[in-house]
């Protein structure tokens, strides 16, 4: 989908996706769809300012993303600037004997050290690995660290790779779709995996913000306390996460203009979400999942989807939930079928994942 936010958002607005066919006899139905980054192009872009050979594939992506945020914001890491990295698997590709890097690079603190030293952050990276909510939880943690005045500003980055490790694992769960994924649709068949890196600046300073900047009003997380790999049938954890984020925000369901949901296109997950949104009084609120554009990008998904939400609000556009045809969930939800204009001031971002985790975050547009 491109190497900058504008390409991604323009692509989504135009209804383009980044999924491509992957044939592999080891997969349950012999094929799946996934979104892959062109790593030759990454190497070329990286070579323009440094030697890519010293860095793993994920490190290159994270460095490119953070570099772009530092350039655009004009900030330099000082003693009041934190670094948060969200990832589920980090440099997991180095465990493959065919990979040229030492297997020790798979320790997440090794990844943290590389990113911290590269940009001269003063403190160790705070690394969050909390399954598929990691990306949005990282924004929540950044907000809370700023609330308690641990930092004045935080660079939050997130990244995960497409790897045999991940594909073989989700395939063993029979969770992969053999066609482009269809979140919330009655014809949904499972997940597409994607790879992605993203970065944002979270700051207490009101000056010099980007046009699309958002205020983080409230965030909440809750566990299902039910099952380590299956979502709650009552949507308990997600419902409680949304309730917690709303309470902190001072908003009720009527104050939420749009939901950027998780929507992995597995049978149980999407149903669970519909139940939780219904319980939260959000059954009529326009909702999409962006997995139909770039697949499920794991620890990067929540952060990337929050960034798309920023632009959705800034452009006053509700993007279609690509792949959706007809509702296939047990409670009514307002899935966005076609991209359209709408006056938007606030949105709710949610995510759920293995380990029973759920996170919700509510944002409001800064500009009037």
């Amino acid at each position, binding site marked *: 989908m491109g190497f900058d936010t504008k390409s991604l958002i323009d692509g989504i607005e135009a209804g383009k996706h980044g999924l491509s066919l992957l044939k592999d006899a*080891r997969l349950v139905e012999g094929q799946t769809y996934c979104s892959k980054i062109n790593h030759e192009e990454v190497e070329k872009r990286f070579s323009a300012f440094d030697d890519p050979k010293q860095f793993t594939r994920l490190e290159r992506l994270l460095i490119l993303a953070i570099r772009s945020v530092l350039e655009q914001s004009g900030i330099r890491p000082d003693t009041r600037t934190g670094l948060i990295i969200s990832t*589920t*698997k*980090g440099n*997991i590709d180095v*465990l*493959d*004997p065919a990979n040229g890097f030492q297997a020790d690079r*798979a*320790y*997440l*603190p090794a990844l*943290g*050290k590389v990113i911290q030293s590269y940009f001269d952050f003063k403190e*160790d990276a*705070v*690394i*969050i*690995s*909390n*399954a598929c909510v990691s990306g949005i*939880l990282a924004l929540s*943690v950044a907000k*809370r*660290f700023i*609330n*308690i005045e*641990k930092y004045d500003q935080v660079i939050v980055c997130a990244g995960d790779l497409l790897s*045999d*490790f991940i594909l*073989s*694992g*989700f*395939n*063993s*769960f029979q969770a992969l779709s053999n066609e482009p994924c269809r979140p919330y649709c009655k014809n949904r068949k499972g997940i597409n995996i994607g790879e992605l890196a993203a970065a944002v600046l979270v700051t207490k300073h009101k000056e010099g913000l980007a046009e699309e900047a958002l205020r983080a009003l409230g965030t*909440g*997380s*809750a*566990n*299902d*306390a*039910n*099952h*380590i*790999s299956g979502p709650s049938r009552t949507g*308990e*954890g997600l419902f*409680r996460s949304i309730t*917690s984020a709303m309470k*902190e925000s001072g908003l009720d369901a009527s104050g939420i203009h749009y939901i950027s949901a998780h929507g992995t296109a597995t049978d149980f997950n999407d149903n669970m979400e519909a139940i939780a949104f219904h319980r939260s009084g959000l059954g009529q609120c326009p909702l999409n999942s962006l997995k139909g554009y770039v697949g499920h990008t794991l620890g990067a998904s929540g952060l990337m989807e929050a960034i798309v939400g920023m632009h959705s609000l800034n452009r006053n556009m509700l993007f279609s939930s690509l792949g959706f045809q007809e509702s296939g969930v047990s409670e009514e939800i307002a899935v966005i079928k076609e991209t359209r204009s709408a006056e938007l001031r606030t949105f709710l971002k949610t995510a759920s994942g*293995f*380990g*029973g*985790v759920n996170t919700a975050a509510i944002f409001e547009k800064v500009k009037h």
Partner: protein
Amino acid sequence: MADFISSYCHIAQNRVLLNGNEVFSSPDEDALNFLKSTYQWLKPGHPKFFKMDGLSKLAFIAAELLLKEEGLISEKEKDIAVVLSNKASSLDTDRKHQESINDAENYYPSPAVFVHTLPNICIGEISIRHKLYSENVFFVSDGFQAAMISNYSEALLKLGKTQRVLAGWVDWDSDSFEAFLYLTNNQGAIAHEAEIVSNLYQRK
């Protein structure tokens, strides 16, 4: 008002310490057998324990010890957030999954292994056991970061996201393991401050 540490425990080198005092040891066993002996000593009656990987077993035992000590073993929901951290994430299980896919002739990835390739699965196990529908996060750092863990826990308490926090370190790697967990409360004798948490961690 700041919070307090109501109890804490260490599990390492085949010893279990509760509030600084040794309460169990079994010196000559390997790590997994040691945890099994600890389970038999604690008697939680939670057979799911035997399906967990090493990291989840370690975290489960440490949490069980503290909640039992405070009389909190019950079917009732408890308002306790879980803030854990370690160095090796889920690498010990990651390596097992990788081994199962390295050889095309001998390809056997398993969902039971793959689901444990995330460090926060152990928080899920604790949440199921103790009915915690609470805030949770798993941080990864080179060593135990007392300031980060206690600061974040205080943030949760100050923002009213939880009444109490179960926080600390649970690390499980191919040749070593170590747990240090503590539980906060709104009353007690030990202040919940970064320096004190750091000192307690070192008292092993």
